[in-house]
């Protein structure tokens, strides 16, 4: 079952009145959408508000989503429109030449042109989260590190990872799970100490 189909199942649950399924979609896409919106709305706090608005608009519009495009494509389009409307409402011009199209939004993750958008209050925490994740990744045994890197950074499927690592898919599944758990173990104490904001 492809990622897109998992999203579609969650969307259908929301369409049947399951608000919690929308929580799962928010958790999954909030940072990707936030990063996209920050291309338009430069102020970090405003960008977070616009991201939140975009999710609410998406929720309201979900009954009309037919699944003809991927959910994230549709969501990113709403995000871009919300950001542009926000700028227009504040009499600011949206960027005239946007170097991307919402159809290709997934590939924006590779762009390195984004400026720092973390709020001053959260900047230290963001840095710590990234540091812990990176350090934990480096401390993993080679096979676990490779499996997680191939999955999260290179975006390979389990089948492709199995081919690259020359091992059964079951082994790939187990390695990725163990790698994530090892990183999560190091991350949990940090997140529990952060007060106010959930991460």
């Amino acid at each position: 079952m492809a990622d897109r189909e998992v999203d579609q199942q969650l969307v259908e649950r929301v369409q049947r009145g399951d608000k919690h399924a929308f929580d799962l979609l928010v958790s999954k896409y909030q940072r990707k959408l936030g990063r996209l919106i920050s291309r338009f709305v430069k102020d970090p706090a405003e960008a977070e508000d616009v991201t939140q608005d975009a999710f609410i608009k998406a929720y309201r519009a979900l009954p009309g989503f037919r699944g003809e495009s991927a959910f994230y494509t549709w969501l990113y389009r709403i995000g871009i429109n919300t950001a542009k409307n926000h700028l227009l409402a504040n009499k600011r011009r949206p960027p005239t030449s946007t170097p991307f199209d919402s159809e290709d939004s997934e590939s924006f993750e590779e762009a390195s042109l984004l400026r720092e958008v973390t709020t001053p209050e959260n900047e230290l925490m963001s840095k710590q989260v990234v540091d812990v994740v990176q350090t934990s990744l480096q401390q993993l045994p080679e096979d676990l590190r490779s499996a997680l890197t191939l999955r999260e950074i290179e975006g390979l499927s389990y089948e492709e990872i199995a081919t690259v690592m020359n091992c059964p898919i079951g082994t790939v599944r187990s390695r990725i799970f163990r790698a994530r758990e090892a990183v999560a173990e190091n991350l949990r104490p940090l997140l529990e100490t952060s007060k106010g904001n959930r991460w």
Partner: protein
Amino acid sequence: MDGELFEDEAEGLFDRIGRGTDAHKDWELYHLIGDALRQPDHIHCDLSARVREQMRDEPTVLAPRSHTVKRKVRTVALSAAASLAAVGVVAWMSQQIGSETLPQMALQKNAIRPVSMQIQSRSNDYLMAHQEFSPSTDMNGGASYIRMVSYGPEGK
């Protein structure tokens, strides 16, 4: 979360990821780890609580079921039509083949005669004389000779 679920597992899994459960926390944490690896320059705090708070005042959305139902009905109808068409084609083909082959088989049946009636006694001598040139000799050893002998009594 990696798009590696089996279809029948998904519904059960989403039921288990209830709000506030360990499974839900893991879902959030694993996505944070993925985002931290992919876009370390843009990690912000979790917005889902804020979105959830705002959604509390939102009426629950309910999509008309026609989309999914229509799609499923269309899929079932198309599958049924394809199956019927396949059965029809197979039946038609078998009818065509049946009508051509039956007379041939009937003709062949009439043409069959016991082997012993066709073999003349003089051919036994010929076969005996050329037995050593038979390609089956090497393979079967004495078997070909035994066959020749078996025709013997009828020829006499």
